[in-house]
Structures are given as C-alpha cells and as structure tokens.
C-alpha cells in the first residue's frame, strides 16, 4: 500500500493523494443500494498527462481505478468501487473551459466543469448548452454527456450522442487518443484550431468510432479528459406551456405531433408526483402541489433566438395550441400550482446541495430505460401494479418521459422516493426496485445505460453483445483496471 502511495505521489504530488479515513468513507458509498466498498486512495490529477501516467502506473501495479468527476452525492452506484484496493481518480479539479467558439458554436471543457460554470461562459457569447433535467450544481457536464443523460430537447438530437462531439481519452491500456474529427489531426488542440479544425464531427476518426467505446461505459474503458460540445444559441424569447391530462396515454398523440414536425425546443411528460418534486422546495410544498396539479402534464418549451424570434415563437404557439385542441387537450401557460415559467426555470436550472428528488422523503431510487412513446403506458401500468403489490404509496411514484433522438425513442424514468431512516421502507423500496427492474426488462424496456443490477439484467439478454463488449474490454483495458466489476455479468 505504501509503495502504491509513493507511486501516486510521484505522479500527482503529495497534496493530491488522499488516504484520510473520512474522505475514503465518503467515496465508499453513494445514495443507491450499491454495496459499499472503501477505496485505498483518492487521487486528484491536475492534467491529462498525469491521468495518462496514473493509468500506466495502475496497469503495472494492477490497481483498479474508479474515475469520478461530479461532486457528491451520487445515485447510480457507478462511482462506488466494486473491488477492493481501488483508487478513486477524482477529476473535479480539472475544471477548465478550454475554449468557447461562437462562430463554430463549439466549446471544449475538462471533466470538472459544471453546468453553471459552462452556461455562464456560454451566455457571454450568446450561447447555451442543451441540458438534462435539473442537474445538480456540482454535476460534471462531461460525465452527464458521456453517460448520455437525456437532453430536454430531442429536436436537435441529430445524433444519439448530441451534444457530445469529440474527446480526449486515455484507455485502460495507457494509450491516449483523440476521438472523432480530432483524431484525424495532430494531437494538439491549438494546432488543430490554427488549422481551422474545431472538433465538430463526432464520428470516427476513421472507420471505427472510439467515442462510442467510452460513452455509457461508467469509466470502465478509459478516462476522458476533455470533450467538445455543440452549443445552441441563447434564446431571446423562451416560454413553456403546460398540457394537462388525466392519463399519460392521452398525451401521446399530442407529443408525437409536436415532435414529428420539430416544433418546440423542450418537450417532456411528467406525472404530478414528479412535477411537484421538481417545483417544490419542501416536503410540505410537494404534498400541497400534488393535491393541486393534474395527474399528468406535458411540458412544451418554445424559443426564438436571432432569426425573427417573435414570429417563430408566435407561429409555434398557435400551431402547437392547434395540435393540443386536435387531441382534445388544453395548451396553457399555467396550471393550478404551476406556471410554465416556473417549470422552465426549474427544468433547465441546477439544484444546489441535495438532488431535487431527495426533497420528498430524503432518498430515492430511480428505474430508467429506453422504449418508444407508444409503449410507455404498458410500463407505467405495470409499475403502478408492482408498487401496489409491494405496498409502496403510488401517489409518491414519480414518472418522467423524455423523448430523445428526435422522438424515435423515449427515456422512461420511474422515481421511488423513500425515507432512508425508515429501515422497513428502505427495504421495501429496494425489493421493489429489484422486482420492477426485472419486470421492465421483461416487457421490453432497454437499459442502454446499465447501472448497478441492470447490467446483469440487460447483458444476460444479449449474449453476443456481451461477448463483443468483453472482447473490446480486453483490447482497451487489457489489465481490467478501469472501474473493475462494472458492466459485467455476476
């Protein structure tokens, strides 16, 4: 252990190698049901060269590395070591915004850059980044995009990987490359910029696509030390409308219509439990809101930027209102308990401290997967049935439906808030999480991001993909040091 420490100190310096018991404890667990495992050290590299040396050294010593970029709390078990004697590679200190280019609408950032930090820098240039639903203030943008957290706007998701474009990655074998367009040029960003190349195209760089080796990988293939991101123009007009319904299925045709013609700049469906949690700051307010809000709400954002914004927004407002009317629905700027403005601000803004889903009961467990919009009601009905069987209060069950990739699929997310101090309730939720995860898979739910127990569920269903993934793991991480134990069958 001491010799390992000496090596780590030699790479990142003594102040960046931490073995304080409390710190190690904090990295040994998260807010999920993942089994805690204390790491040996936490190291905080300051640049990509140190990351590369860390990986090379870890190969020599066969030391498992767990990359972490966001600040705590964590919720998916992916940052909790699965094997003993691991070293946490905390990249949160690498938080430089390397470049912002208005002309190309591109930004290049390090792993520790947060949404607020990035959005502030982009706003100065008249730009913004498509966000996932209300990220934590200390959430790493790089992790968020690399793990394919769904964006609120599916309309501009031409590629599944949007807004992520190129990256610098050190694979588990210790080699470092640029992916995408950047991989075709000299391995130096400044030189590429001087040549007019701004890391725009994500595929490649050649006949294979190495970005896809590290995306959704939970750090099990390598460590990404910068990514380039495609930015949007900052809206000069930004509104959100709310469409209430008694059942989720009543909103399907409406949402299909909106997404199909590519109107709106944000679009999702929530049940009242989820929407109340998003909007409220206390348990009491959540309870009050749940009593006021309609059972289901589709939120639709409309924006205009530099190109006749008033006319664009006005046209889409009227057209989308017509779509709603065609479906027998109301298109409203506010509902009892919520205004469109509030929903918009909460959706795109960050939350400080705890996760917004923790407000209701102190803890929560999510179940999310990919399906198509027309199948969501099957999963929702099944989930409510399972909740009833388990004795879980269905009025607390949150549901969030996010269209993605231009509406060809949706991210369907169930949230189970619970009181972590109530052992019985926590046990019940853990059991429900396990049973429901299996059930959703059996109904055709696809765990594209297979965290925790979902890895076992999903990979068992697809032996050939698992075999190829194992082959790839052997190529890019031959010593099996990168987040060892993740994405494997147990």
């Amino acid at each position, binding site marked *: 252990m001491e010799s390992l420490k000496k090596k780590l100190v030699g790479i990142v310096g003594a102040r960046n190698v931490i073995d304080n018991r409390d710190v190690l404890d904090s990295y040994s667990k998260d807010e999920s049901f993942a089994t805690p495992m204390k790491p040996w050290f936490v190291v905080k590299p300051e640049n990509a060269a140190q990351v590369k040396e860390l990986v090379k050294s870890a190969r020599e010593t066969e030391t498992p590395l767990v990359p972490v970029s966001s600040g705590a709390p964590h919720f998916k078990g992916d940052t909790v070591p699965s094997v003993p004697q691991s070293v946490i590679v905390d990249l949160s200190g690498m938080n430089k915004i390397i470049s912002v280019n208005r002309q*190309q*609408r591109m930004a290049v950032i390090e792993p520790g850059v947060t949404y607020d930090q990035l959005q502030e820098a982009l706003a100065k240039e008249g730009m913004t980044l498509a966000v996932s639903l209300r990220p934590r203030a200390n959430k790493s943008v790089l992790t968020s995009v690399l793990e394919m957290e769904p964006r609120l706007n599916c309309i*501009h998701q*031409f*590629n599944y*990987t949007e807004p992520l474009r190129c990256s610098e990655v050190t694979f588990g074998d210790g080699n470092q490359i*640029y992916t*995408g367009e950047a*991989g*075709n040029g*000299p*391995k130096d960003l400044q030189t590429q910029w001087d040549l*007019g190349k701004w890391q*725009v*195209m994500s*595929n*490649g760089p*050649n*006949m*294979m*696509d*190495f*970005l*896809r080796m590290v995306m*959704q*990988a939970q750090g*099990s293939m390598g460590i990404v030390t910068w990514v380039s991101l*495609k930015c949007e123009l900052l809206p000069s007009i930004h509104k959100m409308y709310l469409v209430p319904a008694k059942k989720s299925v009543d909103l399907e045709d409406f949402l*299909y219509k909106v997404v*199909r*013609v*590519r*109107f709106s700049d944000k679009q999702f469906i929530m049940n009242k439990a989820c929407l109340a949690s998003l909007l409220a700051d206390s348990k009491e307010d959540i309870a009050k809101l749940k009593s006021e809000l309609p059972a289901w709400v589709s939120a639709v954002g409309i924006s205009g930027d530099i*190109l*006749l914004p008033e*006319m664009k927004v*006005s*046209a889409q407002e009227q*057209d989308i209102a*017509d779509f709603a009317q065609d479906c027998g629905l109301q298109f409203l700027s506010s509902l009892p308990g919520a205004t469109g403005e509030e929903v918009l601000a909460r959706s795109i803004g960050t939350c400080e401290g705890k996760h917004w889903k923790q407000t209701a009961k102190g803890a929560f467990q999510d179940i999310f997967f*990919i399906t*198509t*919009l*027309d199948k969501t009601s099957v999963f929702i009905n099944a989930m409510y049935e399972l909740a009833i069987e388990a004795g879980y209060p269905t009025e607390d069950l949150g549901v969030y439906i996010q269209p993605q*990739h231009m509406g*060809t699929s949706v991210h369907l997310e169930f949230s189970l808030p619970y009181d972590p101090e109530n052992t019985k309730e926590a046990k019940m939720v853990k059991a429900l999480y396990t049973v429901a995860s299996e059930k959703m898979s059996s109904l055709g739910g*696809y765990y*594209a*991001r*297979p965290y925790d127990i979902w890895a076992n569920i999903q990979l068992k*269903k*697809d032996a*050939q*993909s698992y075999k*190829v*993934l194992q*082959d*790839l793991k052997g*190529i890019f991480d031959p010593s099996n040091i990168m987040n060892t134990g993740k*994405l494997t069958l147990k």
Partner: protein
Amino acid sequence: MALAREVYQAFEDIVGNRNISEDIGVCETYRSIPSQTSAHYGPSKEWTPLPQAVILPGSTEEVQNIVKICNKYGIEFKAGSTFWATMAYIGGDNAVQLDMRRMKSIEIDAKNMAAVVEPFAIAGTIQAEAMKVGLNVQIPGVGCSSSTLASSSGWAGFGPASIFMGANPENLLGAEWVLPNGEILRTGSLGSGDGWFCGEGPGPSTRGILRGIFGPAGSMGVCTKIATRLHPWPGPKQFRTYGKAPAYKADFGDNFKCYTLCYPDWESWARSVQYFHESDVLYIGHRQFNMFGRNLKAFMLNIITDPEKQLSDLPELLKDPEIQKHNDNMKHDYQVVIAGMTKRDMEYKEKAIDYILEQTGGWKHEMMLEKEKHDYALAYMTRLGHKNLNYVMCGAYEGTFGLSGNVWKTIQVVEEASAQKRKWETEHTCIAATGGDSAMGGVSSLGGGGATGWEFFTNFDSYELESVQGTSDMVDENQAFHNKYAFGPDFCRWNSDVRHVNGYSYTQEEHDEMFAKAPQPWIYAYQYKIREAVNPNHLCGSYLRTLSPGKLEGK
C-alpha cells in the same frame, strides 16, 4: 482458379442453384474499374479481380452460413448491394462476391419515424413508401438508386438534405450484422429483442466498431438489416412528376419552395450558411446541383429543363445576353428547399429567408423562380433521381478536392481551387470543360449544420487512357493543394490507402508502412486489434485501415 467442388457445393446448398454462379460471363460483370464515382479511388485503367463465384443470399441466416463456409475454407468475401462503388467489389483472387439484391424488404414504423430495411432497399423506394405515411428518408449525394443500408452502415452517407435529416450514420438506429467470423451482432435494443428504436449500448456501443466517420466499406462482414430514422414529409403521399425525361419536374403544393439564393461574395455566402446552420429553416440545401460550373450553369439549366434542347444548343445559348446576366447573378449561390409543416411555419420560413438575404446582401435568383425551373430543381433536390446525368457528358465521373469541414476555412481557398480545376479544363483535354468553379456539395454534411464539403465535379472518359491518366495527374496536383492547406486526402484519393490501383488489397506490411506515420497511429492499431477479434482469418479485404501494434512499441 475455380472453387473446389465441395466448396461450391457447400455454397449452393445454402442458397440453391438458382442463386449462385461461377459462369465466367456472370463473374466478369462483377468487376469494377476503380475510377467510377463513389469509389473515390481516382481514375484508373485497371479492373478489380474476378470473383470465383457470385452468390445471392436471401436471408441473414444464409449470409451467416456463407460466411462460416468462407471461414472454414479461407475464402475471402465481399457484399455489394447497388454496386455504385468499387468498395463493394472483392480485392483478391480467392474470393467470392455476395450480391445482396434478393434482400430488399422495407418495414416502416410511422409513429416512431423509422424504417427497417435490407441491403437492396434503395433510397428511392424507401422514400416512396415513407411518403405514403408523411415521412421522408435522407438520400445521400450518390442518389436515390443507392442502398440506404450501405450509406448508413458502409460509407459516408451525407447529402443535400443532411442539414434537416442528418447524415445516414446519424440516422442509424440499429443494425444486424454478420461479423466476418460468422457471428451475428445486433446493436443496441435489437440485441436483446427489445426492438429497433435504439442502436446504442448496452453500455459502450458496439456500433462503434461497425462504423466511424465512414463505414468499413464491407471490410467488417455483412450488414444485413438496419433501422434508419425517417423525417417529416409535409407533401403529397405520392411523388408525382411531370415533364419529359430527363427534365422531370414536381409541384408539391404551396408549402414547398425551392430557391437559388445568391450572394455578392464568399464572405456573405458563408454568413448566410451560418444563419442556416443556426436555424431550423432549411429542408434541403445544396450548391450547384446541376453539375455545371460557374460559367455555364444558367445556360445548362435552360438545356436540361427543356427536352427540346440538347448540348449542341449551348454555343447559341452562350450568345444570349439575358441568360448571361442570369449566369453572372448566380456565381456565389446555393439551392434550398423549404417545407412548411404548417401554413404559419411556411410563412415564418419565407420571412426568415428574406431576413437572411437582407442581412447578407443576397437575393433569390430570378430565373430559378420560373415555374418549370423551380419545379425541376425541387424534384431534383428532393429525390436525387437525376444522378445519371453525372455520366452523360463523358461516361465517367469523379469528384475531386472535397474541401471538407469548416465553411469559413473553405471559402478562403475555393477560388484558388476553382482556378486550378479551370486550368485543367482549358489547358488540357483529359476532362470536360464544365464551366470553371465546380464546387458542389450540401450546405451541411451534418444534421443541423456545422460542416460542409465541396466536391469539384469532374467528367472524363474512363475508356480513354489519355483521359484517365490526365485526370489522375490533375488529382495529384489537387492533392498537393490539399496538403498545402491541410485538407487531408483529395476526394479522389480517399480510398487510395485501402486498395491498390490494380484493384487488389494491400498487405499488412504495406498498411503498416502507411499508418505508422499517421498523426495518431494508435487509432489504426486499435482498428487492427478489433479486426483480429472479429475477423481472425482476414477475409474481407483491406478497406479497414490497420496498423500492427508491434510497430508502435515505445511510442
């Protein structure tokens, strides 16, 4: 060298005797001159090797069994669908050619905007089926008779509509793939039987080994089925045309408009393109669709759109001062199609175009507003069904330069490139004089904008050795231009490192020599390692660029 009887019989047992042939007359037709367009090899006088047999599989299972036989006996194979490109043809003597024409099914999920298609489902047919349910498919620049599966899984796949519909790799939702070792890989949600809606994951995406910026051009086995994302089509359910061949025209109603937008200089041209990259206004956008350069395009549009006129009318038309005026007005131009999803949307898009023109000093080209010319351009841009015109002039076609990437960089060099091409048109006889500045390409090669690529159309005679050699010399000079401005390989040389000029595959030693010098050579070493994992017998030619990792020790 004929196939051993037991091998031939094994193949025949899989597909039946009607779907296999070793007849020399049949096999000869499966050879390609590597100078044909889309091959982007550059002019050549050689032919690809003669296949030992041609096999027409009818299902994924048959493909898998064929590949297993190939592995058992060490026989190379390559699959082709529409055979537009030399990359579809084999690269060695001990090889069989798979012709995928029997696999052509199309299933459309209208609600979720996707089509599941087999290799020989061509873009024009998919489009016709999609339009019936209010959807459309992205047709790459090669045209509507190309395989959508091939452009999605096998090669580049961008086209005039990419700004709205994305390039086909962006549209790829899932793929069923017979790997070179005979295993079947189904990407994303398909692998677990959950459907075709997501082609990524679980976890890291295995589709990453099946296509990058380009597909592997048949070097990673056989893609047998894909799901491609479809896009809204607010037009009629049938693509009705009028007019006489080849001047087909179409009128889709008031919510479609096709304009030729013109600008005083390249700077304002680029500013307008940036506006379109930053907005959701265009349905299609392309420069110089009619394959005639700056000095001729207005004149040729008067010939192409009038079935009574022919090329011999050009000298007379060139004397017409009115057409000359039109021609002068469209030097820095591109053609766009806007499609109104609703009446209000159409009004907004019309106003947005006017606003952009106002901001950039541009104008709508008057002649192209004439109904017949408008409708011709609209039909052409929407279906890309006139691509045979590429070959009419000289019999062969190539795209050279290919100034790809940042539009602000390309406009700095486009005049110099045009002058270089023009010099070859006027000082040599190897290529047709197509009117100077022949920079042609989509307004964006990526969904939503962000990159462009300009191919300079070049017409030559592939059966005239002097023309072939001269064109090749021109490409060498253009490659030097590309080197000078760091544009990478000339379009004609994109595939020069994957197949010998004589049509045969490269050896590993030859590839090692090439890619050890790459700026980031580990990329090619990883491609080597992945090939070793799924193609241990090296049965699919040398299109996959690989570098022996041993060559990088210590680097």
